């Protein structure tokens, strides 16, 4: 039996095989099939062609109406209606809309719908987020989603992997977001194409679940099939807290083969910003001069969790958003919203002059709730800064951590948190 990576072990188990090796095509059983209000309608249309009257397992499909909701226009409303009717007809347990809805990749972990060792496919590229929990999770298209809903199966080519050995303790103001942006800057937006990114090392103990989720979230921005973290006490504690199923822990074999191994000393890293129009265009603060901004967005499946809002509140407490800046804060789920309310963060944001939005993807994909005009610039805690991503084709998005985004809201230009805090 050949040595396997974490990812390969999960794929082998779900293919009912003793072992698999890179390049092999396998048919696997899936534990969860996910779709949103953009991808599910296409999947439902495909599913209908099979003329089935039920999905493979009503508890293993999740439909999350997060992108254009609360419905931004009539067409978006029609798409949600199609999903809602389908969910009712198929008796789907995990249908989320209205006051239940949050950004899918923040919502599923929080609801305990994914556990370590699971295999999850989602018709959304950031499905890779759940790798933070020690699951194999990957984005697929709507036809794969339809096939998953019908058969409970998916096909995969077993990937090879790159190992990231994280060591050392991150310095003040350094977040998981900075670490993953640094890695993407280092290997490029196709640096992990078709492959797994496996995160391990004694530096993991300094990374909260929230930071791991935002790192695994961006594995796709390096082209990876999946990103996965070794399971430790922090993972198990989190899974217990949210009431997830019994975790199954897979460790990579000692002699597992990796295409490349990078050792990253977290104590040496500095906050970074990814410049337009690719997440790989990363710069540290000594590499650029003043850049004036028009908007700040703190939210999304990358950085819309409670810890992210806590950091933003720390920076914005008793301060004001610069007069020419619109600062939009979007708690990623209703639970996060409520907790931020109870902890007083929302009040801090309102007093600082921010807009606080209901949970939605909204501006992250240029949907609604904060679209950029021609020539405008935004600092966002989101994950993509492609041409036209947040609005006009001549607008710009700079990706950064919640620390940097909140500090920039105060100064009105892209700023290191130190500038505001010290």
């Amino acid at each position, binding site marked *: 039996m050949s040595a396997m990576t974490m990812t390969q072990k999960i794929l082998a188990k779900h293919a009912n095989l003793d072992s698999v090796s890179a390049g092999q*095509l396998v*048919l696997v059983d899936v534990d969860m099939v996910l779709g949103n209000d*953009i*991808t599910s*309608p*296409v999947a439902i*249309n*495909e599913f209908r*062609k*099979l003329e089935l009257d039920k999905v493979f397992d009503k508890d293993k499909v999740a439909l999350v109406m997060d*992108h*254009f909701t609360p419905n*931004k*226009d009539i*067409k*978006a409303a029609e*798409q949600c209606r199609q999903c809602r009717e389908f969910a009712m007809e198929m008796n789907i347990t995990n249908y989320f809309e209205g006051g239940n809805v949050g950004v899918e990749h923040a919502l599923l972990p929080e609801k305990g719908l994914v556990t370590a060792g699971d295999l999850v496919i*989602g*018709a*959304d*590229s950031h*499905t890779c987020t759940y790798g933070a929990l020690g699951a194999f999770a990957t*984005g*697929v*298209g*709507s*036809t*794969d989603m*339809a*096939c998953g809903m*019908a*058969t409970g*199966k998916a*096909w995969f080519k077993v990937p090879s992997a790159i190992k990231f050995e994280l060591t050392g303790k991150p310095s003040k103001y350094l977040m998981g977001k900075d670490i993953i942006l640094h890695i993407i800057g280092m290997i490029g*937006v*196709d640096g992990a*194409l*078709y492959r797994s990114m496996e995160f391990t090392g004694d530096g993991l103990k300094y990374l909260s679940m929230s930071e791991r989720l935002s790192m695994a979230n961006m594995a*796709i921005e390096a*082209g990876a*099939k999946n990103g996965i973290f070794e399971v430790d006490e922090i993972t198990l504690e989190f899974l217990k807290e949210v009431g997830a199923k019994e975790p199954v822990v897979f460790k990579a074999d000692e002699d597992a083969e990796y295409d490349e191994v990078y050792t990253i000393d977290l104590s040496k890293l500095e906050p970074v910003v990814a410049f337009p129009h*690719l997440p790989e265009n990363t710069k540290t603060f000594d590499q650029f001069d003043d850049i004036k901004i028009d908007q700040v967005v703190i939210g999304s499946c990358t950085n819309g969790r409670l810890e992210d809002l806590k950091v933003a509140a720390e920076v914005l407490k008793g301060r004001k958003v610069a007069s020419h800046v619109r600062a939009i804060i979007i708690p990623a789920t209703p639970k996060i919203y409520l907790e931020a309310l109870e902890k007083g963060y929302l009040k801090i944001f309102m007093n600082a002059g921010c807009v606080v939005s209901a949970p939605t993807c909204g501006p992250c*994909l*240029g*949907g609604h709730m904060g679209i950029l005009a021609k020539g405008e610039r935004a600092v966002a805690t989101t994950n*993509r800064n*492609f*041409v*036209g*991503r947040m609005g006009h*084709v001549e607008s710009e998005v700079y990706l950064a951590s919640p620390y940097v985004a909140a500090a920039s809201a105060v100064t009105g230009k892209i700023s290191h948190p130190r500038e505001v805090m010290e």
Partner: protein
Amino acid sequence: MNAYGKVIKYGDNVDTDVIIPARYLNTTDKKELASHCMEDIDPDFKNKVEPGDIIVAGKNFGCGSSREHAPIVIKESGISLVIAKSFARIFYRNAINIGLAIIECPECVDEMDEGDKVRVDFDKGEIVNETKNKTYKASPFPPFIQTIIQNGGLINSIKNNAFGG
């Protein structure tokens, strides 16, 4: 199976946001979606594309979102084939699943220019640039994927019991 048409050329990392911007994704109507194909990178695309045309691009074509709308609008626009140095993985599987022909051919991309006439024979795995009089070999798909393509996409494979059997 063959493809024949003129080349429409793009660079590296053509992402799904420029292939079909998210602001138009509030519909599944293919014609309406296709009217915005490539709008943010090449506003002239819809005027110059003719049935059979071939998109030739650099590395990591289709990176970004998992939206299947991206290969759908390319196919709906009449593009018969996309040749790239490499494809983003979700785009790659979506193209196969919906039946849009794609070929990875790193060596031929740099030698092709916008407007070149190109003929591709899928059975022989042969790419011929008629304008430049050059021929290239493309590697065939593995059998598992060929089965999906021969069945006319993933949904038909399930219908025909060729998947998960």
